[in-house]
């Protein structure tokens, strides 16, 4: 072996050694033993948080079916109308949003959307005016900047308007395509939701001339100021922080360092480290510094379930990530993490009449992400997957 070969081999092996030292360690949190059961008579409203469900089909997804049952159950139990709300936290349709009706992709795309509409289209949900807001994700923009992405999102808005008319389901894209937001929703007497289109921000939808970033920040500030005594919950596709790949927790080893270094350098647009994402974070932090931090910032984007408490004064009191509606991605332990799990699931926020708020994290086994083509049979898989859904964590937020 000549010197050049030796040096090459040494460099390669040292690279591998360095890589092996940089793998994220998944956190482990125990399953709670005594999960409190909310008394419906004491509950004012219920908010469901599910993200990145753009690959889920009702007949193959135990989580989607369980979510529908949960929405239907709470719609029946609560006294008041319009007190059950579902937030779809973006990436409604993979891989490139809802194509136009004349496109060959439309039948499969629209079937995916209709399955999410069906969650709030049960008899109790319709009669009690349960609502579902569909927040835009980067995939709903078709990963496109400018008008092509705007058109893709407008297809979704039009489709949901039609579903609203035909199925009676209370569904809509929020905020309106191309506007950035926030879309303000007051839920009961205690909670104000600010729904943002962060994909619009990251993909620079402002260049469409419909809106611009300072306007959006100004409206967020105004909506927070006018909240009265309500707690603020900001919801968007992109999370405020994350212990998943988009948050920089990338295994060095799996991509030979390429993804890791690009993420750390801020070259990957959809990662928290990219310049537009950091500008969004800075804009929000400046608002939180002057108006006070919101109770929670809710996002998807990462295909896992995460819950953090604030570490800095301009952090939201809690950061929730619920993006495992149809995909899973890795997760690592981070400071301030109260819970984290890479498993199919969703979150349920119970708002009590006295203003108490508790979030319950519902998840099933990773093997039940999709029952399509399951070896033991799809029906058996669905039954087992739904039976395996359990509360893996709960946290009192207020």
């Amino acid at each position, binding site marked *: *072996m000549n010197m050049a070969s030796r*040096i090459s081999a040494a460099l390669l092996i040292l690279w591998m050694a360095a890589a092996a030292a940089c793998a994220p360690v998944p956190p482990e949190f125990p399953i709670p033993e005594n999960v409190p059961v909310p008394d419906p008579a004491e509950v004012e409203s219920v908010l469901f948080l599910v993200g990145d469900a753009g690959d889920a089909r009702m007949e193959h997804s135990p989580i989607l079916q369980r979510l529908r049952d949960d929405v239907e159950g709470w719609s029946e139990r609560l006294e008041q109308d319009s007190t059950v709300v579902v937030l779809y936290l973006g990436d409604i349709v993979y891989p490139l949003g809802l194509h136009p009706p004349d496109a060959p992709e439309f039948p499969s795309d629209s079937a995916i959307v209709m399955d999410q509409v069906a969650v709030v289209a049960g008899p109790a949900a319709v009669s009690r005016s349960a609502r579902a807001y569909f927040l835009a994700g980067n995939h709903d923009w078709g990963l496109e900047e400018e008008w092509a992405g705007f058109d893709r999102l407008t297809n979704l808005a039009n489709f949901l308007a039609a579903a609203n008319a035909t199925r009676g389901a209370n569904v809509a894209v929020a905020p309106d395509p191309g506007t950035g937001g926030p879309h303000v929703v007051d839920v009961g007497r205690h909670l104000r939701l600010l729904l943002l289109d962060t994909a619009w921000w990251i993909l620079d939808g402002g260049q469409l001339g419909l809106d611009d970033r300072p306007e959006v920040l100004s409206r967020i500030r105004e909506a927070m100021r006018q909240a009265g005594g309500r707690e603020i919950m900001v919801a968007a596709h992109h999370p405020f922080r994350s212990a998943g790949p988009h948050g920089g927790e990338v295994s060095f080893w799996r991509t030979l360092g390429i993804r890791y270094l690009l993420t750390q350098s801020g070259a990957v647009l959809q990662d928290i480290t990219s310049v537009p994402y950091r500008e969004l974070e800075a804009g929000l932090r400046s608002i939180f510094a002057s108006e006070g931090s919101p109770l929670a910032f809710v996002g998807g984007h990462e295909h896992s379930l995460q819950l953090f408490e604030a570490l800095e004064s301009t952090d939201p009191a809690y950061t929730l990530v619920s993006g495992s509606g149809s995909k899973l991605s890795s997760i690592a332990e981070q400071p301030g993490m109260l819970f984290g799990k890479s498993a199919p699931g969703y979150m349920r926020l119970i708002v009590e009449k006295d203003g108490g708020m508790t979030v319950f994290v519902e998840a099933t086994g990773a093997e039940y992400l999709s029952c399509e083509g399951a070896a033991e049979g799809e029906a058996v898989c669905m039954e087992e997957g739904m039976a395996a859904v359990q509360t893996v964590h709960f946290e009192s937020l207020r």
Partner: protein
Amino acid sequence: MKRFLVLVAAGSLFATSTPTAADAQWQNPVIGAGIGVAGGAVITMSAVVFRARFQREYIDSTDDLIHWQSLPMILTPAVGVVFGLAGQEALMGSIIGSSSGLLIGAAVGAGTGWLLSTEQEAPWGGGMIGAGLGMTVGGLTLGLSRWADDEDPNISFPGFMRVSMSVPVQ
């Protein structure tokens, strides 16, 4: 695992087999190409980071890789083959020059990023851009300067790479 890999790395440096001239004729271009692939990845990543930090052009899908910034993935292995064909000295020079250029460039870039910006990505970005720049400059400079030191500075292609062509001349 880590210790084992480091031991193997150290051992490989002191391996004692000596190549024959015929082995070296095909080994060197292959090594040059292999190192060139790794170097091409570093230089491409450096270009990607440069465009993201200074031109706001990011990686968002695989389509974004079809761009001039990926040209080093082709060019650098080709340069490695040329240095390999040029001879042992040129190849060694390019490897040592690019490796040390990578390290120095990364250090200088990271330091510059840290000094000029408070963003936590700035030292990484500076390091990546510096690494690519340092690798390119170091590899080419030392490779070309050592090329002249080779016993036979003319490129000699191995037999399997030669193409004979005869042109009738009147």
